């Protein structure tokens, strides 16, 4: 029963939401809104669990010499952010908490995002080699797309037209094919979960 009850709950909920999608009545709307609200509640209730896991894992890493520094930085930052936002006044613009957010966290996030520029270069250097016909097509297409950033006078106008064609025709066709496959795959996975065929997400097989 310990295994069957969760599968039953998933099956009943899944079929209910499937039927609800096709019925536009008031009670159907109520079921949808109710289920959405519970999803949000579960997410919020699970947050303390995540915080506990983070703190516990890093406190235990304080004993490990190689991890001690990084874990202490994490725990220190965690404590500072918690202690500096204990009241509503502390989260207004200009407060210490928001200053840390604006002048420490935001620039660090922007810096990490900018790492992409370097990684794109190294990945392109490694990956864009004409090893086969398909790889050559990929290489030439990448060339044409990247050339649009380099001003070459009238060649740029021609290049812009080719880039627009590539993005609106073959790129669109490939993406739509991928999305059709993803849509069917998602439907299949959802059906498998509702029918109880797929149970690994429960931790059981």
């Amino acid at each position: 029963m310990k295994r069957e009850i969760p599968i039953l709950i998933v099956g009943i909920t899944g079929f209910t939401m499937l039927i609800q999608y096709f019925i536009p009545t008031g009670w159907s709307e109520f079921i949808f809104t109710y289920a959405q609200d519970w999803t949000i509640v579960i997410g919020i209730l699970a947050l303390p669990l995540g915080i506990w896991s983070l703190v516990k894992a890093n406190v235990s890493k304080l004993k490990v010499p190689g991890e001690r520094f990084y874990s202490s930085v994490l725990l220190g930052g965690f404590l500072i952010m918690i202690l500096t936002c204990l009241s509503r006044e502390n989260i207004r613009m200009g407060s210490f908490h928001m200053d840390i957010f604006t002048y420490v966290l935001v620039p660090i996030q922007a810096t990490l995002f900018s790492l992409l520029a370097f990684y794109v270069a190294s990945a392109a250097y490694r990956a864009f080699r004409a090893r086969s016909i398909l790889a050559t097509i990929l290489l030439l297409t990448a060339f044409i797309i990247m050339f649009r950033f380099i001003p070459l006078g009238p060649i740029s106008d021609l290049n812009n037209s080719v880039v627009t064609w590539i993005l609106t025709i073959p790129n669109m066709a490939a993406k739509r094919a991928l999305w059709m496959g993803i849509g069917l795959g998602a439907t299949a996975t959802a059906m498998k979960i509702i029918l109880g065929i797929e149970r690994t997400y429960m931790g059981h097989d």
Partner: protein
Amino acid sequence: MNQLTKTILILMLLLFMGGGVFAQAADEEALVDTIGPPAPSPPTNITVSDKPNDAGHGLIIRWELSPDDGAGLNNVIMYDVMRSDSPDGEFSSRNLVPSGDKVYVDIEDTKPTEVLPNPDYMPANSTWYYRIVAMSDQQVSSVPSETVSGTTIENIFHWGKLPILFGVLIFGSFLIIFITGAKKGKELYVRPLAGINAVDDAIGRATEMGKPILFILGLGTAGDIATIAGFTILARVAKRTAEYQTRVLVPVQEAVVLAVAQETVRTAYLEAGRPDQYNPDDVFFVTALQFPYVAAVNGIMLREKPATNFYCGKFYAESLILAETGNIAGAIQISGTDEVAQLPFFVAATDYTLLGEELYAASAYLSKEPVQLGTLKAQDYTKAVVMVFVIIGTIAITFGLPYILTLVTVNL
């Protein structure tokens, strides 16, 4: 009275009468000048019907154009659609519709609350009265049209979603056929996937090198199909690593995902007969923000130097940062995501990539269960049906037969 006197009297009478006529004409002219620009005529033949495929919160108002809209006085610029909850009640404007339009859909489905009262809310099975006023370019309104009523009806079925229902039924039929066939022992062929075939070798590599495996479930929630597919792969990988006594690290970005991932790995170790080797600190929450998560995972990669990285789930801009850092750390990398925009980065930077639906199919490939393989075949046959529709539709529209669109158009 002599003849001359009579003539003078008649002439005077005629003069007075003529003057009166002219005076009246002048008065009328003066009257016309004080009336102002002419008012347009109102629209006619108003009909009010229930808006279909809803929970009873909308009505469709149709009318025939005012005779002065594009003809006659040609001075109509818009129509004011007015509504009341009773035929004799106060009518208030619902919306202004430009001239030439003959239809207005009145919807008000936001339920009133204490914080946001909504006096215009249209509950199901409620009756509303409409009249329409034509407005001219001189800011002159017509007399109101006739008052017509309509009742909102709560519809049981959304006919606009019928093509989706057909799709679900077609897919469900294939599912039943192939699952039944699989249970009877019929052998089903599925094409090999390099990424799936490499999973065992990748785990073996980590065991030989004595290094951990890093499994990243991405930035999705536990409800995302890609994350669920990631759980199924994690379960298989964790079971194998438990058997080989290799450590698997699973940093997660969402708290519900943490709970499921911990249960998945714990059960995998239990099924492998090594529950004592399960370390709950190996499946841990990092942070809910995108780039701080990336920073933490990159740090783990560069310090722990895992031999194998799995990226299975939903990824966004951080995909290349993770994959390149994994490359720097020297790991073999198997990735899979349904985020189409990130696939090129994974293809360029990882050793094996599962594209979109291949990620969802991984569970069937790894378990090799006949029922799971049966669902894969059902998926493929449904895709074939979709391709047939695409070809028929392309030919039909090319030859000017758009009727096929009505078969597949979804009206939400």
